[in-house]
């Protein structure tokens, strides 16, 4: 199993110099990927823009959206943004997409919430089918596609169009259940081989309370679920090691650990724990 680290692109204090230095240290460290989150009606840097900045200061790590809410962007623009990051990073983009959960992001972009599933299907078919690729460059060849979401439709969408599944977080046992569903969908759609399985978790190794406060704010839209996300924040080396071991046992291919505090020392702290 590979381990990646999140860029603090939605975390307060994640300014330009920090993101660039964060990416540089991660690329020099034991991490195989750098991943970003996607929020519109919230502070922080747009995911593709953040990855573009990271592309300039990294050489090795894959650059991933974990995940981006596809339907918030017009399809051709989404393809253009993704392909641009892919070109800037010389072929290192992993594009994780899901329908998007936050109603206020849809309000802010003027996109209809109700039909977002159908729109994501179209976007995936557009990306995978190289539709309009003669007009809308750069080339999309080799963009690794992941799909996230917990519904049967999400798993079907993943198996139909993508290369793998992006899990939304939770204890290893929850990931195991999702992995079985992803594999079942993959077989059901008659895809050869197996889907690539990505997992994720949050960590804070320094100022834990600051990390928890960020999670409470970021997930406020889920109501009481926010406290659950806080409860799952990995706040000690032992908790991280247990989590990593659990995910590895359940067949995860790439586990991304997202920071909850935009403090540059967090990259080094995490690197020390997972090295």
């Amino acid at each position, binding site marked *: 199993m590979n381990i990646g680290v999140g860029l603090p692109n939605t975390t307060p204090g994640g300014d330009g110099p920090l993101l660039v230095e964060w990416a540089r240290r991660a690329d020099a460290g034991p991490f195989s990927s750098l991943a970003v989150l996607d929020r519109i009606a919230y502070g922080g840097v747009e995911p593709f823009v953040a990855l573009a900045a990271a592309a300039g200061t990294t050489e090795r790590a894959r650059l991933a959206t974990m995940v981006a809410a596809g339907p918030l962007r017009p399809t051709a623009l989404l393809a253009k943004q993704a392909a641009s990051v892919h070109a800037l990073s010389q072929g290192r983009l992993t594009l994780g997409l899901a329908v998007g959960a936050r109603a206020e992001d849809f309000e802010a972009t003027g996109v209809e919430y109700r039909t977002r*599933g*159908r729109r994501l*299907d*179209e976007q995936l*078919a*557009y990306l*995978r*089918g*190289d*539709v309009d690729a003669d007009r809308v460059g750069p080339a999309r060849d080799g963009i690794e596609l992941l799909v996230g979401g917990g*519904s*049967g*439709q999400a*798993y*079907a969408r993943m*198996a*139909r*169009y*993508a290369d793998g599944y992006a899990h939304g977080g939770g204890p290893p*046992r*929850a990931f195991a*259940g999702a992995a*079985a*569903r*992803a*594999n*079942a*969908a993959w*077989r*059901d*759609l*008659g*895809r*050869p*081989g*197996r889907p690539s399985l990505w997992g994720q978790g949050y960590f804070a190794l320094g100022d834990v309370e600051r990390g928890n406060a960020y999670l409470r704010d970021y997930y406020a839209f889920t*109501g*009481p*679920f926010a*406290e*659950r996300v*806080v*409860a*799952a924040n990995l706040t000690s080396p032992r908790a991280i090691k247990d989590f990593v071991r659990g995910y590895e046992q359940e*067949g995860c291919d790439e586990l991304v650990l997202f920071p909850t505090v935009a403090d540059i020392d967090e990259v080094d702290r995490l690197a020390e724990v997972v090295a």
Partner: protein
Amino acid sequence: MNVAILGGGPAGLYLALLLKNAGLADDVRVVERNAPDATFGWGVVFSEETLGALRDADPETHLAITDTFARWDRLDIHYRGRLLSSRGHSFSAIARTRLLAILQERCRSLGVRLEFGRELADPALLAEEADLVVAADGANSASRHSREQAFGTSVEPEGCKYVWFGTDLVFDAFTFIFRETEHGFFQVHAYPFDEHASTFIVECPEPVWRRAGLDRLGEEESLAFCETLFAAELDGHRLLSNRSLWLDFPKVQNRVWHDGRLVLVGDAAHTAHFSIGSGTKLAMEDSIALANALLRRRGNLDAALVDYELERQPVVERFQQAASESAAYFGRVASYRHLEPIQFAFNLLTRSGRITHASLTVRDPGFTRVLDAWFAEEQRPRVAPPPMFAPLRLAGRTFPNRVVVADEGAGGGAGLVLSEVVAVSAEGRTTPECRVLEDDSLAEEVAAAHEAGALFGLQLGHAGRRGATQPRSRGVDVPLFDGWPLVSASPVPYGPFSAVPAELDEDGMVAVRADFAAASGRAAAMGVDVLELDFAHGYLLASFLSPLSNRRDDAYGGTLARRLRFPLSVLDAVRDVWPEDAVLAVRLSVTDWARGGLDVDDGIAVAQAMREHGCDLVHTVAGQTVAGDRPEYRRGFLTGLSDRVRAEARVPTLVGGYLTTPDEVNTIVASGRADLCILDLPPSPLERELGAPREGSDGLLLVESGG
């Protein structure tokens, strides 16, 4: 901390005494609407595992409870005049009134304030004087009602109509009784709970209940009806009523279990159908988990309530899933009445997915030995193979075992090697890589399968509107830029950017039928043992079956009989040329998993029509009729559908659905849920390790010198 608990059932009382005993609360009061000795129901059941948890949580009540327990490890099944027993199912039960008395006494001695006969106050009022308010007031929780929005409550009836009696007959095992009447099937769940009495629950599906006139009978008449019906088993004993009325079981679910300082426990938070006997167990385990969370997170109530939910919800979800499977099983148990007693019993034991062939072998090796021998159809064998390795005789062929492999390079050992779908014509291909059946295209594969001791199965299909797509390594239903013209039942494209197919006209039907027949003839000539025609997943023949893809107003659209007309004509044409001594199978989506599409009842009707037209085996799949369907993926997600098709259309079935272990296959085939199973074998790190030894790993331990 001051705690107010609404409801003086097992969950509320147990929580009260745990909190008080651990010194977690200064003041604990339990407010109960009824009198202390009011009782509903008779006995409650605990497993050994639950007893261990109760012992650890409070040894004193554990001692008092186990002192008065009825215990058994046998399960008796009365079916078709036979009594089948299975051992190793350790359970205990106690009279509900006795349990409550023990808990009340312990509460009193610890200084819990018990307030009986008090109407439940508004939780908002209680919250003014309490730091934590606990809703332990049952499935119909009054304190939950006011905030159902916040809790995300859903309450749905599940399972049969049931009535909860007692009896002065003391059973010496957990007892199931199945009784067929002119109205339909009735069944009994009975178990002893002390040395004087047993619980005796009678249930039947609602239509049976109405046909028997039970909807019009009063309490006493209804009791008399049941006493007469089960007179033989009651053996002169009486049924006892305790306001025993026919009920629907409410399945209660809550998305979240706490809102501010109000927290749900027990039935107020969740119910699990009584047929797996876990309601009281889950309720008391909630109390233990909540007390532990409050201890662990002392001073941080919010964190404690989140911990409690995180710990309990996954456990409860698993039990609710199993309980719903069990409730549904008892609702359709009449459809299994053709099963031989030993298979009927095994099907019953494995109904909720919690007991499998392997776990039953640990509990009761004698049972599975007899089951395996019966399944292998041997005459009084001393030793029989596990069900997965029992041969299957079907339409003149013998499958050496029940395992089907569908992927290439899987190695030997399977009973059937199933090809990828091969097209009947170039227009009917899914992708440019998809093969078209030529005269000799399969000769080598057939020979290789036979060489390995397996039968060879060919999947034969026409892609219809899902044709002309890019290779599956890239994705599915991703259209080619330079495809070929598509046909389907109606001119409706399959997915985004898919080409609009032409409506298949009469000439086209004649041609497709001829293509299928000709390909079948070639397959027979090549020695194919199983021919599987593709009537599934929205491909050409399936597109006629579903109203979502068939919008025709000619003789081939409209009612199910008309939608079946063309697909059945293809089956007939193939049956004419396909040998009698080889297997003719169809792959069928038995539900569309989409609004307005085929449901399982329709799918079973289609399977029945296929059987009547000479199909020997139904490969049961689901969905993909339309791209936007709502599939229900999980391990073994097709098993339940195969079970229903096999039982209700009475046709042998083949099923996949991501089965990855021999235990799943043993359980499925021995219980009669399918005849053949596709086994998916995930790669194991052990294989990697054993297949390619690392350098230097010659059995010596290489110790690196530290630096």
